[in-house]
């Protein structure tokens, strides 16, 4: 009798495990698939260029030009070399995302040495602390990256990151958050992302926070000096595997491109 009851309890547990964390609202799912499918009309044109060619830091920037005019967005992955979501999704974008308007520039492995070593920091330390308020970028890599940013003069900048814990729950971590400049669509994007977070993981809901922009971070400098609408995105490793983090990153990126006029939802094409 006892054994049978225990088995029954186990069976109930096993039987109900069917839902998926990566399941999204239809809207945001549409945005990711819209990004992956070329719209009608001409195909976008992709060009590549090198940042810091013939140095240890040499890394590729992919520029995808949509058939229609529009804003320029720059996306960075791998500013921290062990944060795979930005690197994985950066490569996916370079290989098969199709903006409907404007120009999409993506650097999947911004600190390539750090990426290759599978470490947060590269040769000169933490790249995302090399963009001080007063003065020039503080390392060779930071100068190379900043030159590319100035050359492309983006309207929107998105820097993709990953935290280990949860913002507001684990003191020193900032997971599942969007930090942004004052003119950004942070709350809307957080709401869009939260459609992808299941109700039964309430602590994993995204928060949007306006940043004071006075720090040495790449997105701070882009907002300060180029007046770009700038975002820093953080998903979390806390209970989330690589695929789930990547999906959060994809949804964020596609939703951002749509909000800033580079992408149209599938139905509106």
């Amino acid at each position, binding site marked *: 009798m006892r054994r049978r009851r225990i088995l029954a309890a186990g069976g109930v547990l096993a039987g109900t495990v069917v839902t998926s*964390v990566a399941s999204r609202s239809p809207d945001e799912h549409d945005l990711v698939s819209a990004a992956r499918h070329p719209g009608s009309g001409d195909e976008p044109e992709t060009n590549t260029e090198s940042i810091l060619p013939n140095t240890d830091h040499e890394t590729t920037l992919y520029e995808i030009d949509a058939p229609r005019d529009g804003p320029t967005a720059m996306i960075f992955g791998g500013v921290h070399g062990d944060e795979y979501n930005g690197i994985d999704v950066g490569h996916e974008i370079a290989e098969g995302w199709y903006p409907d308007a404007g120009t999409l520039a993506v650097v999947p492995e911004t600190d390539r040495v750090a990426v290759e070593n599978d470490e947060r920091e590269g040769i000169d330390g933490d790249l995302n602390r090399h963009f001080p308020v007063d003065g020039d970028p503080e390392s060779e890599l930071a100068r190379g990256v900043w030159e590319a940013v100035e050359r492309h003069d983006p309207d929107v900048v998105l820097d993709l990151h990953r935290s280990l814990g949860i913002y507001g729950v684990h003191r020193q971590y900032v997971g599942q958050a969007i930090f942004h400049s004052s003119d950004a669509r942070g709350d809307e994007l957080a709401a869009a992302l939260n459609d992808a977070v299941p109700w039964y993981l309430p602590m994993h809901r995204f928060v949007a926070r306006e940043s004071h922009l006075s720090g040495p971070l790449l997105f701070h400098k882009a907002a300060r000096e180029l007046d770009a609408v700038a975002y820093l995105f953080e998903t979390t490793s806390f209970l989330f595997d690589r695929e789930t983090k990547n999906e959060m990153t994809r949804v964020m990126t596609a939703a951002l491109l749509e909000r800033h006029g580079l992408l149209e939802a599938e139905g509106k094409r």
Partner: protein
Amino acid sequence: MTVSLRRALTAPATIATYLLLVVPLALGWLKTSLLSPLALPGYLIYVIGTAIGNVFASRLAFWVYWIPFFAGCYGVAVVVGYGYELLRERFLTASNDEPRR
């Protein structure tokens, strides 16, 4: 009309509660897409546990918290099992007290 500790430790309600707290979250740890609404109670215990632990040991990796989580969930399960057995005992005693017809 008491419940022995030994009975509370192994009562079916104890074991069922333990499985409910631990299994759905552990599945999600293996693969996030295996998380389901059943994981919510374990999820809350785990998140609160890591939040408290994080205040005192901010550099401790989160996987370490699975050990106190497993232990803590068993503690919760024993309390639930004890309560359940106590209620059952009372109910049985009450029905035995009824006059036979």
